[in-house]
């Protein structure tokens, strides 16, 4: 076995020198050996796509990977606020999964999960069943309409879009902004934290203000925040609202929604009644439906508790949860979702080969917010596993930009292209 392994490594080295891609190496390793196990990945967003790719990459193709995703296309939430500002179109943010599948030999089932049987290690879909050795659930978020029942229907969401999952909802909101006469009021809310993308609502307010400043300067952006203050990049966004978009953004903290009248686009909060010309309600969120089916959302009945070395659920053996659905003192960002996916994939490769997962994972998060068509600002942090607390904690050196800049805008664009390429090719 030793000799075989050395021979394999030597051959791998020679082939690499000869300029053959890692895909050929994977195929080579794969062709001679049966799989050491099967992982089914539920969800093809940032987390699910990254997990699928890195499982194949790091197992040298020895793990069989099947992704179950209802949508044919991937639409990026990062940068989707720029569609509202008018500097990007939704088609700039839309991709398919062809290269990811072809490069890494990932099996793909376009279907929706309907049930998860943890005991039998089996999932049911609308059109079939799949068994697994390990299951990764990367379900994203599900909106909670308990206190906003008037927004539950598809028809209501057409009139009052959330646009918090990118796609037609984003296009719809942009069209409403375009159709709004100058002098109108765009009203949006910020749900109580935690929710997907902490700086996202404030970036959205900036993007709509950018559009108004250039096209509808008599209009207003009214932000009704359920939180006591701006919860990410506070100093930076405060300055952007007060200076860059002075007179355009009206930010109102401690202003949680009580109810919405869809037909008249009127919002009632704990303090006031606000009329909108264009209304955007971002509902509170919880772990996506597949996590709920497996009853893994044990924290506040919303988020899933996991082991941060493997992302295995604390409630179900052999089921891992990654991405926004996880309960963690970590920002629910796309970069973080891919990080969790990679730690999870790394651990599963080890576990399936009867070896120990990394006992001390470390990863970095970089999150940019665009405040105009070209200017962006960051929050960045390294996180490392704390063995005593058994959670990921921020390392020294993290922080935010001094001010938004066009240089960081260029980096933010490069971030997007690199992370898309990382998870989709």
């Amino acid at each position, binding site marked *: 076995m030793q000799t075989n*392994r050395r021979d394999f490594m030597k051959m*791998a080295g020679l082939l690499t020198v000869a300029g053959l891609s*890692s895909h050929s190496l994977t195929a080579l*390793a794969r062709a001679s050996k*049966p799989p*050491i196990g*099967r992982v089914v990945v539920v969800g093809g967003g940032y987390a699910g796509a990254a997990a699928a790719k890195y499982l194949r990459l*790091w*197992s*040298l193709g*020895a793990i069989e990977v099947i992704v179950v995703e*209802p949508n*044919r*296309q991937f639409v990026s939430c990062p940068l989707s606020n720029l569609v509202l500002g008018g500097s990007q179109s*939704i088609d*700039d943010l*839309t*991709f*398919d999964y062809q*290269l990811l599948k072809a*490069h890494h030999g990932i099996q793909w*089932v376009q279907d929706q999960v309907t049930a998860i049987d943890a005991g039998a*290690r089996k999932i049911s879909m609308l059109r079939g*069943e799949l068994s*697994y*050795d390990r299951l990764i659930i990367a379900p994203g978020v599900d909106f909670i309409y308990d206190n906003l029942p008037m927004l539950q229907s598809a028809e209501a969401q057409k009139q009052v879009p959330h646009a918090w999952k990118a*796609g*037609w909802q984003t*296009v719809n909101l942009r069209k409403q902004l375009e159709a709004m006469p100058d002098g109108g009021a765009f009203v949006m809310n910020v749900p109580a934290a935690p929710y997907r993308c902490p700086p996202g609502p404030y970036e959205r307010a900036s993007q709509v203000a950018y559009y108004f400043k250039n096209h509808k300067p008599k209009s207003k952006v009214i932000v009704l925040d359920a939180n006591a203050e701006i919860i990410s990049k506070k100093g930076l966004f405060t300055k952007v609202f007060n200076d860059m978009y002075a007179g355009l953004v009206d930010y109102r903290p401690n202003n949680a929604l009580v109810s919405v009248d869809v037909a008249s686009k009127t919002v009632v909060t704990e303090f006031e009644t606000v009329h909108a010309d264009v209304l955007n309600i971002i509902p509170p969120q919880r772990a996506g439906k597949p996590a709920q089916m497996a009853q893994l959302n044990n924290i506040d009945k919303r988020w899933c508790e996991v082991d941060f070395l493997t992302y295995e659920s604390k409630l179900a053996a052999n089921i891992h949860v990654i991405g926004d659905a996880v309960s963690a003192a970590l920002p629910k960002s796309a970069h973080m979702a891919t990080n969790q996916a*990679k*730690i999870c994939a*790394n651990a599963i*490769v*080890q576990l399936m*080969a*009867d*070896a120990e997962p990394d006992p*001390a*994972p*470390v*990863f*970095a998060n*970089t999150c940019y917010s665009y405040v105009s068509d070209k200017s962006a600002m960051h929050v*960045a942090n*390294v996180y490392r596993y704390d063995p005593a607390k058994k959670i990921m904690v921020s*390392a*020294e*050196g*993290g922080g935010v*930009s001094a001010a938004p*800049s066009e240089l*960081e805008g260029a*980096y933010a*664009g*490069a*971030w997007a*292209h*690199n*992370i898309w390429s*990382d998870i989709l090719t």
Partner: protein
Amino acid sequence: MKKMIASAAVIGFFSPMLVTAADIATVSDVHIRSLAASCAACHGTQGNTVSVVSSADSIPALAGVQQAEIIAKLTAFKSGERSATVMQRHAKGLTSDEIAALAQYFSVQVPKAPVTLKSQKLQAGHAN
């Protein structure tokens, strides 16, 4: 076809023919490969950056860069000797050992022509 997939699960089936932990883990150190993969959001998969901005501001590829060069840059970001937009935040969060291991990891990655990912028209059937 799905039925075939469903019936094919191999549970806990190991034989001497199969890939072992050593086979897989030797490819790159387990701890460093996931940390290095975290850099991919800006520096591309295994350090092969997709270049989209002008050369002056572009994010450097890391694949195949000399270990000493990467150590020198990260150390300068960490100490503050070299200013940056975000790299000082990342370098300060890393230990010197991690900097050395990351530099070693990227130095042995093979530079590759980046794969072009093309965006496309959003289809009517998309759920959201």
